[in-house]
């Protein structure tokens, strides 16, 4: 499609459709967008032509890439520094185990069971080593664990796990030249300076209609992303670290996060997730369902092997440990980002990409279902939550007369 506005209308129309599906079926917009992207490519590809959706068009790639960078930044900025300080030892041990075990396990399964080459196998290891802080957070919030030390520890461990994934994605395929050294040096300098500069800069010039804060953040993300790309690394690596470092300033500015959210979810991430879905080949998935099965179970078993003993070492009971492990076995955003990185850099084929994305989506859904159905440590739920079903109850249970006096 040559008319850029028609093509944009098609993409935004698909995003709108995905949002409606998300509302109707009560799933996340991201997951819905991936599925809509896959189905749209399948249908439009057959009817109009394989390139009709324009997933590889420069401007679509740019918007999708920006979506991945800003989404990663937000994911880093959502870290609660206080929680991490409280549980840093446990988060570090469990998070590292949650990253290393599936990274090696899934890579080994891809190499020795599926017979993939070395590069694709490492990429599979990275893509399946992730966890999903957002998936876990939604479960924690719904059950009430988000206010308990147990829930906070799980979330902090998830952040460490994802940091491991992002670092590995940024470095494992890096050529390690002088450029890599310069990238590391510039990153360290930026990571030291940004937390000191950002807060005072925003306080002095921020809070205006001109959206200075958003421009500043995008400038930092694009600048560091450019250096990362120049060095043969991945732009989401500095984005996640910058997000984590600014969690104490940007992360606590709810108004700014809300404005960034509007930009990200309204325009950018639909392009990212629909594009990620559009590269999934349904025929490739149907032709070799065992590949998906091997990858999915490789992630699950290696997570179990790594996370279960690490959690157990912090004296949790069997049920708590199993639930904790299953939560750490989830994955979505960084899994798809890693897989798309592999596809766009020619590390993996379209078929391998399709199986990886399917395994990532499977890991978003299946562990949470099993955990909540069979292993939920109900006794750890806070009293008011168990009594009330939500924290809101204590605030919202009131008598009419009191309200109207």
């Amino acid at each position, binding site marked *: 499609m040559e008319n850029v506005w028609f093509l944009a209308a098609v993409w935004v129309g698909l995003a709108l459709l995905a949002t409606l599906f998300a509302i109707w079926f*009560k799933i*996340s917009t*991201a997951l819905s967008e991936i599925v809509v992207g896959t189905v749209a490519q399948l249908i439009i590809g057959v009817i109009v032509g394989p390139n009709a959706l324009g997933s590889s068009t420069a401007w679509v790639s740019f918007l999708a890439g920006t979506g991945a960078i800003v989404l990663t930044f937000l*994911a880093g900025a959502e870290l609660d520094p206080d929680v991490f300080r409280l549980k840093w030892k446990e988060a570090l041990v469990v998070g590292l185990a949650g990253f290393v075990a599936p990274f090696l396990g899934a890579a080994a399964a891809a190499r020795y069971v599926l017979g993939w080459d070395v590069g694709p196998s490492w990429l599979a290891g990275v893509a399946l080593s992730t966890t999903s802080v957002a*998936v876990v957070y939604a479960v924690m*919030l*719904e059950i009430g664990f988000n206010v308990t030390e147990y829930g906070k520890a799980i979330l902090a461990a998830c952040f460490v796990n994802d940091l491991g994934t992002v670092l590995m994605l940024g470095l494992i395929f890096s050529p390690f030249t002088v450029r890599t050294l310069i990238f590391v040096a510039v990153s360290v300098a930026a990571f030291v300076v940004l937390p000191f500069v950002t807060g005072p800069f925003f306080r002095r010039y921020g809070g205006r209609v001109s959206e200075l804060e958003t421009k500043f953040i995008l400038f930092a993300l694009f600048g560091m992303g450019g250096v990362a790309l120049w060095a043969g690394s991945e732009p989401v690596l500095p984005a996640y670290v910058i997000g984590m470092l600014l969690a104490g300033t940007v992360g606590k500015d709810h108004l700014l996060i809300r404005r960034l959210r509007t930009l990200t979810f309204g325009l950018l991430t639909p392009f990212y997730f629909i594009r990620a879905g559009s590269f999934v080949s349904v025929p490739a998935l149907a032709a070799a369902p065992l590949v998906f099965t091997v990858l999915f179970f490789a992630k699950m078993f290696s997570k179990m092997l790594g996370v279960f003993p690490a959690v157990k070492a912090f004296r949790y009971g069997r049920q708590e440990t199993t639930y904790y492990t299953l939560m750490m076995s989830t994955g979505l955003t960084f899994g798809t980002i890693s897989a798309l990185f592999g596809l766009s850099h020619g590390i993996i084929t379209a078929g391998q990409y399709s199986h990886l994305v399917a395994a990532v989506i499977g890991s978003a859904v299946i562990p949470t279902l099993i955990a909540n159905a069979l292993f939920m440590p109900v006794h750890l739920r806070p009293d008011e939550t168990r009594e009330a079903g939500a924290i*809101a109850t204590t605030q919202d249970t009131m*008598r009419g007369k009191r309200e109207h006096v």
Partner: protein
Amino acid sequence: MYRRILVAYDGSEGGRAALKQGIALAKALNAELSCVLVEEHLPHYAASISEVKAAKEEIDAHFRTLAKQARDLAALGGIDMETIVRQGHEVETIVTITKDGQFELLVIGYHGHSAIFGRIMGSTAQSIVRLAPCSVLLAK
């Protein structure tokens, strides 16, 4: 006859019918009236915490408004009504509250608590009728 009545309300047409009939019954029988509102689930498998937080804020605000509407309607009818907002599965939550609160009558709307399939099949209302520990009035 009934001393403790619970109404399940979700802002839908059926829910409003249940609320109105609950208020009328409570007034006529001089019974205690409570109203439960069950918050829907957060989006499953979200891509970022921001999405989950935004959804939670929206849901909380929506149900706070509904709770106030319900209390206003009860106050207009001269009834002092307690509203309880809880999160969870609709059937499980309503049945649990009915049991725990030892309510003697549960008033629900026919279409009020159903999603797409529920709207067609009426499955939520049927499940509540089957599992509730007390009499159930299905308001239309």
